[in-house]
């Protein structure tokens, strides 16, 4: 019998000014990370609505990561501070509902941190792969 490892689907929300540029830098430096990571560009990490995170899980994502400028470096001065509170609260709530903690993450990646972006994604994909399929926050209708 052949066992195929579950290929996770990761949605990464990256702020335009730091993390998206950091992802570009990872590309420039050819720092590989799994193709399971798909990036969505948002102006700022504070643009990420909990609705988007849940939507991703509903439609079949196995992990969601939000990347923004380092605290203090937000292009809009304070966006990532709000994002930090919101996501801390949201992820804590998901944890409270018994959803695996490793499926969600917030990471601060600057435009200069291509290496960090790549390393973060490698690590995140690995952790989510280990968890296997997202059973606790899935919408079976989308899994056919």
């Amino acid at each position, binding site marked *: 019998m052949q066992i195929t490892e579950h290929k996770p689907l990761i949605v990464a929300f990256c702020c335009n000014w730091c993390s998206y540029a950091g992802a570009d830098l990872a590309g420039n430096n050819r720092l590989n990370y799994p193709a399971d990571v798909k990036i969505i560009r948002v102006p700022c990490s504070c643009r990420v609505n*909990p*609705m988007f995170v*849940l*939507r991703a*899980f*509903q439609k079949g994502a196995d992990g969601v990561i939000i990347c923004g400028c380092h*605290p*203090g470096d937000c292009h809009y001065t*304070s966006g990532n*501070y*709000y994002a*930090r*509170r*919101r*996501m*801390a*609260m*949201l*992820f*804590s*709530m*998901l*944890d*409270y*509902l*018994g*959803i*695996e*903690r490793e499926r*969600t*993450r*917030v990471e601060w990646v600057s435009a200069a941190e291509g290496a960090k972006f790549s390393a973060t994604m490698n690590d995140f994909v690995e952790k989510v792969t280990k968890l296997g399929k997202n059973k*606790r*926050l*899935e*919408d*079976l*209708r989308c899994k056919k």
Partner: protein
Amino acid sequence: MQKITTDALVQKAVELLNNNTVSYVLGWKKGEFDYDITPYVFKDEKTLKEEFIYSDFCGVNLSKYLVAKTKELAGKILVFLKPCDTYSFNQLLTEHRFNREKVYAIGIPCEGMLDIDKIKLNLEGISSIVETKEGVKVNTLDDKTIELEKQAILLEKCKNCKSKKHYAYDELLGEEGDVLDNNRFDEVAKLESMTAEERFEFWQSQLSKCIRCNACRDACPACTCEKCVFDNPNSGIENKSPANSFEEKLFHIIRAFHVAGRCTDCGECSRACPQNIPLHLLNRKFIKDINEHYGEFQAGLEVGQRGPLVSYTTEDVEPSDVFNKGE
């Protein structure tokens, strides 16, 4: 503490109505039985005298009605507020949801409201309920009498009352109480200390009861959106029924998130739920997290407060560190 009587409230209301201080009285109206009390807008002395009631079954928080009623009605409205209702009152004012000028608020004491559901767990077929010192005496249709202790039949929200102190009123009737020590986060802490599997099982079994009647939302004084995202076909997440366990969670997570930092923990959600889902445990989780990570915060303590999710400090905890407890 001297219990405030219906008569005292009626007398006050009639006085204010007759001297034209107010044109309407938002209060509670007697029902068919002793327990099915309905919020009601009284307009005249006669109805007030005949039908107004303030009893142990007046759990409904009247604050939210002010949003609609102050817009709908032309004159000033007298509203009776129990201590916990005053938090909602302030929070609504903070969010400019009604015009304070149009309201005359009277703070009234509350000794904890009763849950008819809990009474009915003990018996079916009630002919009357009489309040006693220790609780209630219930007479049944088959002519039996059962005595029940108050503590056992309190509404969920009253079991862990946070305050007997009023934070907003124009006038206070009866004695002012104090903020109480309470254990309202114990149940949250208990859940936190479980394993993720256990928590998942717990919430799965609770939320699967949801019939999406929206009673929690519609009773919630923090849910005063002109149009809820779940009712708005353009919002992208509109839905009318929980098609599966995901949608059950989606609704309750988003709702809890939307009221996070604004929820005063008035407990109306759990009281309104026809399926007895302990929804307050979701809101309390947020309140507990906020208290622990961003400093003690009680929504509705005063008008104009800045909520914890619309403020920040540069030293805030990282989302990954919020998890570093339990398990």
